[in-house]
């Protein structure tokens, strides 16, 4: 799940300065769960923009705005409203925004800040557990990611800042290394803790990432 936070409305208004006709795109997947770009938030945004004197030429909320072909199809379905718009306000992640970028030549504006790939602990409560490093090392660490959940991404044990199982950077956050230690202890695999892990390959997924899967036979 891609976690997003809504930008302050004033900031959104600033982005839209000089454009009076706006088309709003929301996302039925992550941004709906985050309540940043679902049906409700899109309707609310429409209302507020209209109160500010903008014309909302149309809105659409569909699954996976990050799917570029999908987005182009949705734009064709909403041809009239899309053509009438001077700009697009995208209420989902940065990937969704750039998917819209590919579907139009007009101005595209983000309504959200995209923060991380998150696990859903419960509704409205998300936590980052994987930062997409491109070379997964979970196997060695009791399936608790030190790259992401340790603030410093340490691979060889706790820093001096660990405090009663909490992280020095934020007492509300668990120290990943206390968690890893306890987990490996439970599994009887403390030998993994004692192993020295050399420098990580930070270029395992060279930015910007790109993957093309070979088509399997028959297709």
């Amino acid at each position, binding site marked *: 799940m891609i976690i997003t936070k809504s930008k302050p409305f004033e900031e959104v208004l600033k982005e839209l300065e000089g454009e009076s006709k706006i088309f709003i795109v929301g996302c039925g997947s992550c941004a709906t769960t985050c309540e940043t770009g679902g049906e409700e938030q899109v309707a609310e945004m429409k209302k507020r923009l209209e109160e500010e004197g903008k014309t909302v030429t149309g809105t659409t909320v569909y699954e996976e705005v990050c799917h570029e072909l999908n987005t182009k199809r949705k734009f064709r379905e909403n041809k009239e409203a899309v053509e009438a718009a001077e700009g697009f306000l995208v209420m989902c992640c940065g990937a969704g925004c750039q998917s819209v970028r590919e579907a139009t030549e007009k101005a595209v504006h983000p309504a959200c800040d995209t923060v991380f790939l998150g696990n859903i602990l419960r509704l409205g409560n998300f936590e980052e557990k994987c930062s997409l490093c491109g070379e997964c090392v979970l196997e060695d660490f009791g399936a608790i990611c030190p790259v992401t959940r340790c603030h410093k991404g*340490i*691979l060889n*044990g706790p820093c001096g*800042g*660990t405090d009663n*199982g909490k992280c020095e950077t934020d007492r509300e956050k668990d120290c990943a290394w206390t968690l890893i*230690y306890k987990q490996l202890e439970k599994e009887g695999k403390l030998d993994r803790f004692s192993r020295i892990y050399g420098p990580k390959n930070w270029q395992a997924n060279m930015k910007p990432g790109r993957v093309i899967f070979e088509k399997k036979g028959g297709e």
Partner: protein
Amino acid sequence: MTLLIEKHAKPSIQEILESGTFLVTGEIGPPKGSNIDEMIHHIDLLKDKVHAMNITDNQSSVMRYPSLGTAILIKERGGEPNLQVTCRDRNRLAIEADLLFAYTRGIRSVLCLTGDSIPVGDHKDAKSVFDIESVQLLQLIRNMEEGKDLGGNELNEPVSFYKGAIVTPEANPIEPQMLKFRKKIEAGAQWFQTQAVYDMDNFKRFMEQARKIDDKVKICAGLVLLTGPGQIKYMNNNVPGVFVPENLAKEMEEAPKEERLATGIRICARQIRMCIDEKLCDGVHIMAIGKEDVVPQILEEAGVDITKL
């Protein structure tokens, strides 16, 4: 090969520790800004009173005059530096290059740290690097000593350093800390300075455990000068891995305001004496954080003269 410093004015940390002499080190905290007069004053004040001086590397993630520049300055003024290197602000290329430079300028000992996190410092929006961390930094140096950089490429000549690391005797939980201590030794650490210790009973227990893991590695107790009840409260509440026990807090509280510093000096001197007399460890590292002026006084009160150790 040409080292730009031909003659070392002082014995190295390695020579001192390996000869069995009790090591006394101090610390220099570089200033924020280009005026280094006060720092030079501190260097000159300490260079003959302690065996060597640590130089902090953007300590607490606060940008300052660089540790490498200060280490060279100490060398130039006839002192012996212990260069602290953290992994927070530089990636492996930058660290390797710095180490080449340090080596050619006669720096012989490096303390390997991961570094504090960016948000505790004064550049809260900065990108943190942590390309490698303390254990990997020790490995990196060992690699360079074997003539290779981390890219696997040959160096035209290797480097050589006495490799130090830190350990936190008050860590909670302690078990992972001890496992990491062992890993640091495996990765090449030859000596340790500890995070600040005050509870000497706990320190003794830590030393017993540490000696069991490795009875050859050298360990020096980190001592931070106490300056008043406010600082004690702050450290107990905000500095992980540091714990000032009740009896010391009380000793400080009962001291009249104008005698607080003197009380801190007395406590520190007492700890140093205890480390020496009871042969608790191989040396002490005195951190006077901003009060470097009183280090000679601490040593005097402890009856320590490094020329006579």
